[in-house]
């Protein structure tokens, strides 16, 4: 069989991609951003208030969680992050009419780019925007910045350069100082840069009088959180530094300046953010006016205007606002119009200047009118249909304001703006049900296509002709389906559910539908019950429950051990004691490795308190546990030794394995481990602050990656065999005239498997380098489990072959037994005619997920290990940094999917032997390639069933409270996993298996086709 005949893998992968594309377009939300700008020029009503302050200083301390400045932080106090930034609460206690402290709700996604957008526009950036965080994007919506520029005011900026990607040209060129934001390892550069530029502008710089808004964005607190976690002396030092900065700012600023200090979002217990956990959305907001008092104090404000909320762990509730409420408040305090898209509501404390709150009522009037105009414009826009269901409620709420008298007007106005905010929040969780249905149908069909192809690939007979015929029919049917879909487009647009789908999406769907039916009908697979099928069904059904979705990291090892049960029971009935011992031994190894891997976990938020973080030394630090540090270096020697030991069973530790394992693989693992050890030394400042190993580890990592890719790749592609051929002359026996040359080929029995495994090891080493220490141990154990599984699958096949033979032909069975006992000494074993079974694929698929979870990942956004972006470079560099994060995150799944073809290659000799030990006439290569294709389809099938499970649950539970926290992230993970599994098997079959088989074919031309 030709390798090119495996195009069906590509077809199946594109079916997956099409399904994922269609479903994702319908499921992940988007928001229409309106580019209108509020203008005072042609309005009859006042559009702003007289300013109370000439200018403002806006200091953003990234990830400043509310409890960091809370006057009553949670008990017990953390010595590292509570009561350290004390200035805000001191001033609030002393000057309750000048200083105001709030717990501000930051809308998820709690990533800096989204929060910056929210903070200047007053709007709600959507979930999909989270993906843009690496690339940034400028905004065309109205914002405070734009209003300031329109009023011809100058903006000074210093700090996080994300601001410049949002506002490339708005800041005054002489007063703009940006610093790299994604360099998480650097705790101080940005903060020092901000401080150095901030104070001159406040005091004696030539530009000191020329700015009207000064934005300073500190990143240190956020970086300490990401890098070391909030419970560390470094956090204390950082917060101390922030407090000092605040004290100095308050000291030097003049009375016309308003000071606003806030965190753009909070951080979770470990110091990460991105999701919608309580700790992540609770940010701090402090507003301080050194000059005029802003209000009479909160005791004069009616209590129903003031919302309170208790921060997790605190004993007292505190004043709680929306973070975007700052936008209209700040605009009016500076005498600017409120940005057009704002959905925030002015904060009462900042405007309540007489007993009846006249000023506040005025502010609220302007605010309400602006929100109303925004909603009306949105309603009139192309996306206005989204408001259909809620428009009446909004109109009722609006009319209540104008009808009401002065006393109730406040209540109704606030009710209206809040209703608008809530409406928009749920609105931008708007789904396109039609597209979702298209996507789900395509994904469902891809399951049947995968199943059909899997069934058909169990039979070698006439495979080639079948595939060629299939190619013709499916392309014909795809074209027909596409044509039909294009025709059906116009008539079907009358159905409301199908509106908003484009013609090209119709055509794509039609093509998928047509071709998929073609494949399914040409095979017509028959359902069969199987043990591993039960695991697969339970696993995909588990996504319908949020509990099982977030406990998936425990369910996977449970399933893995369960999948071992049939093998384990075969051990007792195996025909020889050799096989019995072998199966029991490797079962024990497999189970032990899986269980040891399961000891590593980064808990997701929902698992608290039934889960202890073992991936790191603790829940709030980002250092490896000391046991892992101790085991890190020994494991780099142990793993290659185990691989050698296992390869030596089939005498295939020869050939390139002899060079690759000790001279390329081991050093690469060592370098990868040393990198992370040095990173740990740097992070925890073990050697003091004077020693910086950054340059050393950059070089080390570059050498390691370069070495394994260039040396390993070149070596493997030139000689992809692990054979050693020994020729020796046998002295002439009696009656023979001349001596014979006896040729022994070592590693013959595993001629396909071992070189492919070397290929796999190259990938393993690359993933290893990007993985943190605990994850490296998990990967090592996973490799051991994989090898044990391969040996198990082989032994079980042997045992079954002998047992079957005993049933049919006892004498042949004895011959088989004979050859098997020889296989222990490395001579060729039988070529079992059995095909790869789903029972053998399931453990590899589960192992892939197990490796993903135990290498410190979860199906959540905050579990992405951003640290890995800086393995090769000290600063953010394209394309390497994002690529490294991807390798770190999806590497484990990719790696084990790449191992699936090994099931067909492992312990297969390049020549079929007849019972007398003479090479037979037929070659096993077609069967081997088809087996690799079958194993690949099997693992694709496993992951696509999981994808369908998670997609169905995300679609079905799309109004569930936890959809953005549990179901949507799991769907996105599932989709990405399918893509990476597809890539891995394509690489494995085309490059890995293709190269190995063609090389073996050229080495053993005799008997091959």
């Amino acid at each position: 069989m030709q390798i090119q005949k495996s195009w069906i893998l590509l077809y199946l992968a594109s079916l997956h991609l099409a399904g994922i594309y269609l479903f994702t377009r319908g499921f992940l939300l988007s928001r229409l951003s309106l580019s209108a700008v509020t203008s005072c020029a042609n309005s009859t009503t006042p559009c702003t208030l007289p300013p109370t302050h000439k200018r403002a200083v806006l200091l953003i301390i990234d990830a400043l969680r509310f409890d960091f400045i809370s006057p009553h932080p949670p008990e017990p106090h953390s010595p590292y992050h509570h009561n350290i930034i004390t200035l805000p609460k001191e001033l609030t206690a002393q000057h309750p009419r000048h200083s105001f402290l709030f717990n501000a709700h930051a809308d998820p996604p709690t990533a800096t780019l989204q929060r910056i957008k929210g903070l200047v526009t007053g709007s709600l950036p959507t979930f999909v925007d989270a993906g843009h965080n690496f690339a940034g994007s400028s905004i065309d919506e109205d914002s405070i910045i734009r209003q300031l520029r329109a009023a011809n005011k100058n903006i000074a900026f210093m700090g996080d350069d994300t601001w410049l990607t949002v506002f490339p040209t708005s800041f005054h060129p002489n007063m703009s100082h940006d610093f790299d934001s994604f360099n998480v390892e650097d705790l101080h550069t940005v903060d020092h840069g901000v401080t150095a530029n901030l104070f001159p502008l406040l005091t004696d710089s030539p530009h000191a009088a020329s700015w009207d808004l000064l934005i300073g964005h500190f990143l240190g607190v956020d970086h300490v959180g990401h890098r070391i976690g909030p419970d560390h002396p470094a956090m204390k030092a950082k917060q101390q530094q922030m407090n000092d900065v605040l004290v100095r700012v308050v000291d030097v600023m003049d009375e016309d300046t308003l000071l606003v200090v806030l965190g753009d979002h909070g951080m979770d217990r470990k110091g990460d953010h991105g999701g919608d956990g309580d700790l992540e959305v609770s940010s701090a907001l402090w507003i301080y006016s050194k000059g005029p008092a802003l209000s009479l104090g909160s005791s004069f404000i009616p209590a129903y205007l003031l919302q309170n909320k208790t921060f997790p762990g605190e004993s007292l509730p505190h004043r709680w606002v929306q973070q975007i409420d700052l936008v209209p408040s700040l605009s009016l305090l500076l005498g600017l119009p409120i940005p057009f898209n704002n959905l925030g509501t002015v904060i009462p404390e900042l405007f309540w200047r007489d007993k009846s709150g006249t000023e506040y009522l005025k502010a609220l009037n302007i605010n309400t009118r602006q929100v109303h105009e925004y909603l009306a414009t949105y309603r009139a826009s192309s996306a206005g249909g989204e408001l259909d269901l809620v428009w009446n409620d909004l109109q009722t709420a609006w009319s209540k304001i104008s009808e009401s008298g002065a006393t109730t007007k406040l209540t109704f106005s606030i009710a209206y703006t809040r209703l608008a905010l809530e409406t928009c929040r749920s609105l931008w969780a708007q789904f396109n049900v039609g597209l979702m249905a298209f996507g789900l149908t395509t994904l469902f069909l891809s399951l049947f296509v995968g199943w059909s192809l899997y069934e058909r690939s169990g039979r070698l007979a006439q495979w080639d002709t079948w595939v060629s015929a299939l190619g013709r029919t499916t392309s014909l049917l795809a074209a027909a389906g596409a044509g039909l879909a294009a025709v059906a487009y116009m008539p079907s647009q009358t159905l409301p559910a199908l509106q908003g789908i484009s013609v090209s999406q119709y055509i794509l769907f039609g093509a998928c539908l047509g071709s998929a039916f073609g494949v399914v009908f040409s095979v017509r697979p028959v359902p069969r019950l199987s043990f591993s099928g039960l695991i697969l069904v339970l696993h995909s059904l588990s996504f319908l429950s949020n509990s099982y979705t977030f406990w998936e990291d425990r369910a996977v090892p449970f399933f893995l051990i369960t999948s071992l049960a049939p093998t384990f029971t075969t051990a007792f009935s195996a025909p020889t004691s050799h096989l019995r011992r072998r199966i029991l031994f490797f079962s024990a190894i497999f189970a032990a490795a899986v269980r040891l891997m399961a000891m590593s976990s980064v808990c997701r938020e929902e698992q608290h308190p039934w889960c202890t973080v073992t991936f790191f030394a603790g829940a709030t630090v980002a250092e490896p546990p000391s046991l892992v540090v101790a085991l890190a270096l020994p494991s780099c020697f142990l793993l290659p030794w185990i691989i050698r030991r296992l390869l030596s069973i089939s005498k295939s530790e020869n050939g390139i394995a002899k060079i690759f394992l000790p001279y390329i693989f081991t050093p690469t693992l060592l370098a990868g481990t040393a990198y992370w050890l040095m990173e740990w030394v740097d992070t925890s400042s073990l050697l003091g602050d004077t020693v910086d190993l950054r340059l050393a580890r950059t070089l080390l990592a570059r050498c390691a990656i370069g070495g394994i890719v260039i040396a390993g790749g070149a070596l493997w592609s030139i000689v992809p065999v692990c054979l050693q051929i020994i020729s020796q002359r046998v002295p002439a026996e009696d009656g023979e005239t001349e001596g014979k040359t006896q040729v022994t080929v070592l590693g013959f029995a595993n001629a396909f498997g071992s070189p492919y495994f070397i290929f796999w090891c190259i990938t393993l080493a690359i993933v290893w380098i990007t993985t943190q220490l605990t994850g490296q141990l998990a990967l090592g154990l996973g490799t051991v489990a994989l090898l044990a599984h391969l040996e198990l699958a082989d032994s079980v096949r042997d045992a079954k072959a002998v047992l079957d033979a005993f049933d049919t032909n006892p004498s042949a069975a004895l011959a088989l037994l004979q050859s098997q006992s020889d296989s222990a000494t490395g001579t060729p074993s039988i070529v079992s005619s059995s095909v790869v079974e789903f029972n053998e694929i399931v453990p590899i698929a589960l192992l892939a997920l197990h490796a993903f979870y135990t290498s410190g990942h979860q199906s959540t956004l905050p579990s992405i290990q951003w640290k890995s972006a800086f393995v090769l470079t000290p600063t953010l560099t394209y394309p390497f940094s994002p690529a490294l994060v991807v390798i770190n995150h999806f590497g484990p799944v990719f790696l084990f999917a790449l191992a699936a073809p090994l099931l067909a290659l492992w312990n297969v000799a390049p020549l079929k032997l007849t019972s007398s030990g003479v090479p037979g006439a037929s070659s096993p290569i077609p069967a081997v390639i088809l087996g690799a294709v079958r194993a690949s389809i099997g693992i694709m099938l496993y992951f696509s069933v999981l994808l369908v499970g998670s997609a169905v649950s995300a679609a079905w539970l799309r109004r569930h409270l936890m959809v953005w926290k549990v179901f949507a992230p799991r769907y996105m993970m599932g989709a990405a996993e399918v893509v990476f599994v597809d890539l891995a098997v394509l690489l494995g079959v085309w490059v890995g298996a293709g190269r190995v088989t063609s090389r073996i074919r050229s080495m053993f031309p005799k008997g091959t086709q």
Partner: protein
Amino acid sequence: DAWKAWAFTIYTTLAYYVVLVLFGAPIATHLPHTALLASLLAILTVFIPAYALGPPVLPLPFLSQSTPSAAVVLNDTWVRVFAERKPHSAAERALLYPALGAVVGAWTGVIPIGLDWDRPWQAYPLTPAYGAALGYTIGALSALVVSGTVFLAAQDVDRTAEQVAVKNKNQKAKERKKRGKELKEA
């Protein structure tokens, strides 16, 4: 005898302990819980078979040390009944089915632990223990049903066979008579 059956049950408890930990039972905490669940499973699954069949011959102290040939027969029975799940008699079915039921029940009993209902009965190791007991009961009942069905079917087969045999006999007797007549006539 009972002592050896107990000894084997204790060994099996240790084995179950390891298996439970491999399936994900906590390593450092809940030690008595896991141990008790392991002993429950061991008592449900192997105590009665070990008493009825005699414990399998293993190189462990306190187990029976019989002659090699007897040992092979005994171990083969254990393998056939429990590993290959091919009971040959009603007695063997009554040993295998409840044991299988207990193991499957304990496995299924793990599932409710993951739900976030926060009920006291959800705590480990309660649900696997309930599952094991329930599975044992279902297994015992199904052994009864299967053995009963097999017994009735066998009786039916026997009766049919008897009838066939009687018929054949009659026919043969007739033929013999016929042939005898023919011979006589000849």
